[in-house]
């Protein structure tokens, strides 16, 4: 007999851990907000659990058959997209197209680029190592503020700022991951959620360092061979470069020995342990690398806006990036890119329905987790 660890007290955990954490942050966030955030957290953790539950496999398989027909088309398209010719054409389009577009479209494309990089980074944590991270954007905030502060107070330039932002985010990931990743269960999700909120609260209140809700302005722009990047097109090309670099780095990582070990951990942690995989260290590595990517993206964001403020880094940003990863397909690079594209562009198209955006994301996420946990293009087994 095997004992489904999933059932060990855990249904209890997903309610009481968030409640307990909720009580802790209640004094600073206020009741209404705390309740809303923690309700969403409980919901997400519940779904996460559900998506791993055997009882759903049957139901899911039935539905998946229908969905997979659509996905098969998409997937063969994505395979086609990986051929050198298609890649060259795509790249040419990505480089040339924005030249003929106005600032509005360039900004949306840049934003999409930011989210693609963020989602690929989060995928390391959620998709590869199988850890539910509910406060990913906090690491972006840490990166962004690290650069904003170093740039305005000490005149640090952008390129070393990128490194500093990524390193600071990674440092906090080690600090946070070392104690929590040793625990099984849902503590990690809640701790990251807590970190997300606490980071925002600190940024809002530590006036002397962060300038509170007003944020920090006049953050330094990147300088390349004496040229100061400042147009929408400049930043678009910069994020394009970062995104391409990220895709290559992720590809390398995912097909490496470490990448395979991550998959093993996600598929069956105990089996992975008995194979001699140091599961704690590899999970920490995924968390730290993913967080470093968030930090780096944060630095880019700060430099592009020349401004940072706490309101760019809310819980709902974290949820949205999580949606991109889950929707597009955990573990699949094209899938995640697709997820980011859909979640950024569709709301822009349906601007009039702004208010229902969160609701639509929520419904999409629920349907995905239940019926196609591997996402639109994902290959990961929904265990």
């Amino acid at each position, binding site marked *: 007999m095997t004992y489904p660890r999933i059932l060990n007290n855990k249904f209890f955990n997903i309610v009481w851990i968030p409640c307990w954490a909720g009580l802790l942050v209640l004094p600073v966030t206020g009741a209404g907000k705390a309740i809303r955030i923690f309700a969403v957290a409980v919901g997400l953790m519940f779904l996460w659990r559900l998506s791993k539950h055997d009882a759903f496999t049957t139901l899911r398989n039935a539905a998946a058959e229908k969905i997979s027909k659509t996905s098969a088309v998409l997937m063969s398209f994505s395979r086609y997209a990986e051929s050198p010719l298609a890649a060259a054409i795509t790249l040419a389009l990505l480089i040339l197209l924005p030249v003929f577009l106005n600032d509005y479209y360039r900004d949306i494309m840049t934003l999409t680029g930011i989210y693609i990089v963020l989602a690929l980074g989060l995928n390391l944590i959620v998709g590869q190592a199988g850890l539910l991270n509910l406060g990913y954007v906090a690491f972006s905030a840490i990166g962004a503020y690290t650069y904003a502060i170093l740039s305005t107070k000490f005149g640090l330039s952008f390129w070393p700022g990128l490194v500093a932002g990524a390193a600071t985010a990674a440092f906090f990931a080690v600090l946070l991951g070392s104690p929590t990743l040793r625990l099984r269960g849902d503590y990690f999700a809640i701790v990251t959620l807590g970190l997300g909120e606490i980071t925002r609260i600190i940024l809002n209140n530590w006036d002397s360092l962060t300038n509170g809700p007003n944020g920090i302005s006049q953050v330094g722009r990147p300088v390349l061979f004496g040229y100061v990047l400042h147009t929408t097109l400049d930043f678009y090309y910069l994020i394009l470069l970062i995104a391409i670099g990220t895709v290559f780095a992720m590809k390398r990582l995912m097909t490496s020995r470490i990448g395979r*070990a991550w998959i093993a951990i996600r598929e069956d942690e105990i089996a992975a342990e008995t*194979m001699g995989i140091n599961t704690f260290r590899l999970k920490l590595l995924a968390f730290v690398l993913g967080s470093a990517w968030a930090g780096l993206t944060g630095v880019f964001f700060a430099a592009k806006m020349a401004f940072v403020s706490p309101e760019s880094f809310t819980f709902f940003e974290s949820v949205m990036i999580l949606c991109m990863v889950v929707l597009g397909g955990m573990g699949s690079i094209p899938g995640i890119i697709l997820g980011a594209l859909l979640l950024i562009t569709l709301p822009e198209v349906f601007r009039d329905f702004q208010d229902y955006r969160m609701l639509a994301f929520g419904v999409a996420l629920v349907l995905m987790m239940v019926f196609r946990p591997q996402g639109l293009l994902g290959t990961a*087994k929904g265990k």
Partner: protein
Amino acid sequence: MLELRDVIVSYGMIDALKGISLIVEPGEIVALIGANGAGKSTTLMSISGVTGLRGGTISYDGEPISGRPAHEIVKRGISQVPEGRRIFAGMTVNENLEIGAFSRSKEELSEGIERAFSLFPTLGERRKQLGGTLSGGEQQMLAIGRALMSRPKLLLLDEPSLGLAPIIVSRIFKIIREINEQGTTILLVEQNARAALRLAHRAYVLETGKIVMQGKASHLEKDPGIKKAYLGE
């Protein structure tokens, strides 16, 4: 080689192991038999370092290993074929074997894969097949092959006969003997007591977390109590 002394393991309030002691000598096949819930898997998981002890010690080659993390225990030469095989379903046969060699270097990897395929030719024909699509018997072979990839000196096997047809069981047991003859010590957990006692040199009988009998396998096989309780005679 391996010694458990007064090992206690509990899950919450329940004591799964209530102070068991057992010894495995180099070169032996030792069987651990017992009914459902007796604590057999728990014993193996505590040796592998997946489950922590509440009391007692486990030592290997004269050194205490209890409290050491699982990956370190694999490095020291103890590998487990877990109950239910626990194949990585989404990975190919080759990739499963590669994961088995995670604690080993690249050169040892190809060597190990060759060895696994010579032991289990069926696996060699299915290198690229996904683990989840293998038959039960093939999955068991893959699980054993995967565990051997770390070149263990001591192999822990948890119910390798589970859910397999008798003919496959006897084939797997023959291979287990072969592995033993090539120099790997074996601790075998089984509910199929008859087959286990025939294969093993010595055996322990576990009942609700306690060792109630031990001795030469050939003696236990003739014991009236064992016959009645485990051999259905």
